[in-house]
């Protein structure tokens, strides 16, 4: 098991370095921030001055090496859009809001999807099951930002039950959590439903019922536990996706998280911040996959010896 963990860790590190290199290069392929931020009347000398001050006059490999060297010491550079703030400061301030939203969206997805998936499985081929499938289809077809705007329109503008945007009291969480979590409801529901259907047909479930075990126990204790392994894999990936995919929802709801921060830096070409965010998101995604793989191997020993 230890060998498995070490190998997966090394693989994750290699992935992260490769991702950082790609992101760094991609950011610079589309141009540099000096042209976006300098005043139009700035001359070539002015531009050269800014290039020197920001280290943009160095070759790309030198810039990358310096960035990674500093990053290992926790220095991710200074923001160009928000003068006087370091990248680390900005991300540290915003990350809790994103994690909060992602965790709540995940929780929302689970608490809605698990009962719906179970209900759909035990009521197979009934109107309840069909309804569940339709919800799943809609959930996976509708873009999250569109869902967000529709929810905002209905509940904030027309009904005035909830605020349109911002982060504050509990009422401010409702719409962004639903908009963000809805896709997960659909995805989890389908996974749970199909896993439950497989398990419900097994011999040991039939035996449990014959022995008179209550249906509640059959479903929640025997079936769900065994059906949970497949969704568990998805769970880990989804948490990473929710954190990394927060850009659209945070922008729509003006949620002060890392996703909105990323969006705000795009127009200003604030590379320092943007590349750090993207690398961080990649790191979270890779990390979640690593945790899931290790967990999976722990739960199913066959995996680690494969």
């Amino acid at each position, binding site marked *: 098991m230890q060998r498995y963990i070490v190998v997966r860790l090394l693989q994750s590190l290699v992935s992260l370095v490769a991702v950082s290199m790609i992101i760094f290069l991609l950011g610079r392929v589309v*141009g*540099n921030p000096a*042209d*976006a*931020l300098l*005043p*139009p*009347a*700035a*001359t070539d000398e*002015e*531009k050269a*001055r*800014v290039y020197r001050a920001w280290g943009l006059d160095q070759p790309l490999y030198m810039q990358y090496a310096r960035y990674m060297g500093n990053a290992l010491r926790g220095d991710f550079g200074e923001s*160009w*859009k*928000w*003068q*006087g*703030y370091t990248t680390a400061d900005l991300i540290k*301030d915003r990350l809790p809001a994103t994690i*909060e939203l992602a965790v*709540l969206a995940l929780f*929302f997805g689970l*608490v*809605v999807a698990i*009962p*719906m998936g179970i*209900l759909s499985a*035990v*009521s197979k081929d009934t109107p*309840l099951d069909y309804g569940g499938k339709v919800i799943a289809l809609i959930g996976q077809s509708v873009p999250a930002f569109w869902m967000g*705007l529709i929810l*905002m329109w209905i509940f*904030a*503008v027309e009904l005035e039950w909830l*605020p*349109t*945007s*911002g*982060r*504050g*009291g*509990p*009422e401010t*969480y*409702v719409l962004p*959590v639903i908009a963000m979590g809805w896709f997960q409801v659909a995805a989890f529901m389908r996974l749970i439903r199909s896993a439950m259907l497989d398990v419900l047909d097994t011999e040991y479930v039939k035996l449990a019922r014959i022995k008179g075990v209550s249906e*509640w126990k059959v*479903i929640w204790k025997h079936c769900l536990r065994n059906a949970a392994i497949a969704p568990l894999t998805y769970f880990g990936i989804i948490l990473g996706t929710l954190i990394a995919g927060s850009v659209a929802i945070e*922008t*729509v709801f*003006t949620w*002060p998280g890392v996703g*909105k*921060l990323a969006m*705000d830096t795009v*127009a*200003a*070409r604030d590379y320092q911040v943007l590349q750090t965010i993207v690398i961080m998101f990649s790191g979270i995604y890779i990390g979640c996959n690593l945790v899931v793989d290790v967990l999976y191997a722990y739960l199913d020993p066959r995996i680690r010896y494969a």
Partner: protein
Amino acid sequence: MVHTWLRRPTLWVFAPLLIILLVAAACGDDATVAPTAVPATAVPAAAVPATAVPTAVPAPAEPAMKTSSTKRLRFATQAPWIEVVLPWRGGSWGSNLVVRTHMEPLIDVHNETTELVPNLATEWKMISAQEWEFKLREDVPYHKTGPDSSDWGTFKAADVAHVIVRNAEGKLSTDGPAFRKKFGETEADVMAALEIVDDHTIKLKPVLPDVDMDLTASSQYGNFLMHAKAQWDAEGLEGSEANPAGTGSYQLVDRDVGVWLLWERVEDHWRQTPEFEEFEMILVSEQATRMAMLLGGEVAMTELARDLHPEAISKGFKVHSTINPMTQAFGILGGTYPDDTEWYDANDPFQNVKIREAMNRAVDRDLIQREIFKGVGEPLITQAYHERLPGWNPRWADEFDEKYGYDPERAKELIKEAGYEGGIDATFLLMQFPGFPEATAINEYMFTAFKEVGINAKIEDWEYARWREQLRDTKKTHGTIHFRRTSFTTPMVVLRWYNARPPTGGGSSFWLTTEHQTNWDDAFAAPTKEKQGDLLRAIGDFKFDNYTEIPLAWLPGQAVVDPAVISDYTWPGNVDAGFDHFEYIKAAD
């Protein structure tokens, strides 16, 4: 057999929702959402021509005594590219939108008449093009800032020098390149170009002639806003940014970087005490969200694309426009250079004046005004020029219909006469600009209009920064057209960006002749405003007669307001930001 209670849908619907709400109630943070008041009605201000008043000394306006029952005025707007609270730390957009709320310029633009009026400077005069004297207002206190309410005294001449030095040092300041040229690069150089006569008199002695120092001092297109040197000396950059000390009608008291800023009214302000006790600016990049915030009553003012204005108006909101136009929309023809430059390409059809005339004749400006700009704005006759700005020639307006009027048949003839009977190719560069959401629609219309007359265009999506980068390698803009906007400001600023070569001009140089460049250089060094105006007129004549751009329209800045909270918002318009003079917003109750 399944227990029946498991099949109750209500259980599976409400139980999870209840859990969610309980969790959400347990989490939470300080709210910035404060729903505001309840709806009413307003009257937009009429446009008033501006007159330059170089040395006027009118009395300051009576402070407003009215206080709104709405404590906090909330305004949702796009975030500037660089978000700053000190003027020299970024460009004019951030400076005018944010900093001008808590810091003031030496000379103001009157919010109703658009005249230059005394502000922190009570008098100013141009002794020569290389010597300006400013008499400064006495007893104007700086905001007390910080947890111990530090007192930074009153506004003095040393503060003016401090701001000039900081701008000259600033990497991203819009005034930075100009201040470095005019005053020097180092603090020592700058101070040598200034003379502090006494605490309330300062002379600016630019090393290059500058007849527009009064415009620079109005900070309409720059960063020349006053900050307390005492705070800078005591607290440095960090302290100054944490709690900036200005003299504005509002004082910045709190901020969530990239999210919102909050100001509090300065009671009994020397110039204008705002009617709203608090002013909150919420930075919202998504337009649909801004619309929702307005409709939901969470903000009393926002900016929306013009095609959303009818919907807002139908729901009882009002649209207020700037007195001055804010934006000029026009098309730039890339790669048009005179034949004495290294960038000249004789094979470029854009070099042919008949082709350029044909392009202008292919455009139905009335249609654009009506359908794309929704009837807002006024015609742009010659790019960079307006009747209220220096260098205007009324001949252009008189001859516009004759020379630029929509005539696709004439356009086709011109293309044939130019020797391009088979048509010409062009590339539209579709770029997005803040304050110009119509860019896409205009490009799409032009694509069709040009095709009809034999100009075969293709559209490419470009980032503005990419265009500016390639502009420096000037060959790469040949054969391209893009529609963009720039600001309402003296033609000296606009021409410097688009039509003048270094060292006096910027990096871009469309349409020059040796004569034009000479006129520009002479205008740059003109000893009087009159001489500068004459030279600008000569340049404008050349631009107008040679179809150097495709002028479209002057557009105002527009704010959509909740008339129940705001009865009037009259502001002169500003470069980039468009929104300022918030202290003059009148409450509805």
